[in-house]
């Protein structure tokens, strides 16, 4: 494996990881932007997506079904949660949200263990994704190429929705000033619920897409949530583009860091966040305080 191949390999790995991380964090940042809450249950929803995607795929013997089932399940569950609980709490302080979303993540994780058992679960990839792509004589997993492509498609369509549609405009408007938007006669609550559902859907999709790399296991949510918060902070809370950029930056740090300085891999991401937050407390793309 020559050095140019190493570089190609690492670059592709960065993009694939960034695409997975972006799926995980976009929902979190959207929800923060529009509702000003830190959703600690995001990791559990990510796990829920993974497990429900696996279940659907296994039931129907088709990997692609899972891509549909995972976001739907997470969005459905998230909406129920939003409708029955979060809605009562909008006037409360951050502590209430912390406690209720933390409680939900405990409930969800344990419910998944009860339903699916504690053992690791996996999904069979269709042959087109389980194969390899050859770069010279180096095999590269087709699934990672798929992740990169999917990431680009999803981000591009989200960017379109965000910048070019009325819904995107409303989301940005509410993120800036919910009361003003409400005063303009817009159903802020509806947009909030919609955004929450979409955010959860992306968490679910991200969870399912991670399964072929890390499998589905109890504790995958807890492992994901911290990464997600770090990325969202680096990018800027509430900023869609920030979380995309943050995902790329963290993926870059982890991929190249693990290769060149594996001993510092554990702390590199946190050092990155400290540097960003000390220089720009609002994150790279966020509003500066």
């Amino acid at each position, binding site marked *: *494996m020559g050095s140019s191949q190493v570089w190609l390999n690492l670059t592709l*790995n960065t993009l694939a990881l960034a695409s997975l991380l972006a799926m995980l964090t976009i929902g979190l940042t959207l929800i923060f932007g529009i509702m000003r809450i830190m959703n600690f249950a995001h990791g559990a929803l990510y796990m829920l997506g993974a497990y429900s995607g696996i279940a659907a795929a296994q039931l129907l013997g088709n990997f692609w079904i899972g891509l549909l089932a995972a976001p739907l399940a997470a969005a459905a569950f998230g909406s129920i949660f939003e409708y029955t609980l979060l809605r009562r709490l909008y006037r409360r302080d951050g502590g209430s949200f912390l406690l209720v979303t933390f409680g939900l993540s405990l409930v969800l994780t344990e419910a998944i263990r009860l339903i699916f058992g504690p053992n690791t679960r996996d999904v069979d990839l269709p042959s087109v994704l389980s194969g390899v792509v050859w770069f010279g004589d*180096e095999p590269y997993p087709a699934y990672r190429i798929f992740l990169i492509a999917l990431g680009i498609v999803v981000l591009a369509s989200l960017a379109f929705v965000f910048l070019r549609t009325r819904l995107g405009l409303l989301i940005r408007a509410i993120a800036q000033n919910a009361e003003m938007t409400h005063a303009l006669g817009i159903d802020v609550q509806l947009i909030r619920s919609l955004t929450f559902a979409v955010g959860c859907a992306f968490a679910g999709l991200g969870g399912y897409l991670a399964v072929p790399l890390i499998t589905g296991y*109890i*504790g995958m949510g807890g492992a994901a949530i911290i990464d997600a918060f770090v990325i969202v902070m680096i990018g800027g809370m509430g900023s869609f583009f920030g979380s995309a950029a943050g995902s790329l930056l963290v993926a870059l740090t982890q991929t190249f860091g693990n290769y060149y300085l594996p001993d510092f891999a554990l702390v590199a991401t946190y050092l990155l966040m400290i540097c960003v937050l000390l220089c720009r407390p609002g994150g790279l793309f966020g509003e500066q305080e």
Partner: protein
Amino acid sequence: MSVTRRSLLTNAAMISAGAVLPSLANPAKAQANAIRIGVPTGITGNWAALGQQIQRACRLYAKTINAKGGIDGHSVEFVYEDTQGDPAACMRKTTDLIERGGINLITGIISSPESLAVMPRLNDWNALYLATISGAGSLTAANFVPNVFRTCTSGPMRAKTIADWIADSSKKRFFSIAQDYAWGKSSVATFEKLITDLKKEPVGQVLSPLGTKDYSSYIARIRETNPEVLYIAMAGDDATAFLKQAAQYRLADRMQLVTEVLDIVNIKPLADASVGLYGVSQYNFAYDAPGNAEFVRLFKAEYNEIPDTFEGEQWQALEFLAEAIRRAKSTDTAAVRGALEGMEIDSVKGRVKMRACDHQAEQQVFVAQVGKTEGVPYPVPKIIKAYPAEAVVPGCRKDSY
């Protein structure tokens, strides 16, 4: 002030009395009632998968032995507590089991830090602990305490087995990847020392932090170094993730993959991608011994599955314990300890001896390769060679060779 001081002293006296009391009270209680065994293990949380193996083995054991009238007429009862793998919780649960539950026999603790937290207290508690998962070499070396017995294999034993197996091979260049914590690091250190002694070359080493999700950078590094053999010291979900990603990069086409832990729980999610993988099988369902055949039959009847590594390891520990209680004719800590020391039994792994000097069970260790087998829908480890205890167990109170 004087009151406080006096009550302080009185209480100090009461505690020392309390430490003696259980040992006096327990045998009597045990004669009359069930034999109770405490299992502080991981029921929920990240260790739930291993905890489930521990619990399944214990449940089956209780059911089986109680159907036969128990141990010398006393039924066996397990008390499970959830530690979530946290040493502080394990400490609290174990204290509760021992002090409030009046239990003096403990088994099924999962992580090494949990074991290390509990061990120094066993003497005061006058309780015994049978280690069935914790592989840290130090348990029977630097941190040895008389009330701990390790019935399972240790990390160094597994590393030694692989090194011995490799000695016969013509392969020269070795790369190691291990989880970055005590067990992974000590395994790699042991392994690299042993193969260097064999005039083979360790060409690289990577330690991956616990909970790593993307192993692609490490795989790129391994590919670039291009060793002949990749030695893997990883366990749990991390092992599954690494093996899965290694398979996606077709790593096995370029080099031989050898893992120190070849458990069904880790390779089952990989399905056919795991076929051909080499590694150490601490316990193997297909091992040909009368005790094992019976265990596998019972296990299949109960759970409709074949037993995995720690189900076998836990079963072996319980057989040791039951035999010791029979020989001691009591559950008294000192008596059971005395019976265990030097005891030999025919277990699911064949003849196993609990050596007296450091309480490490001397047993054979298997090298296995993953392959398909009849009657099991997924690939499983199949024994290719067994290494006798004399070859792989370290010297007394040692964890290196």
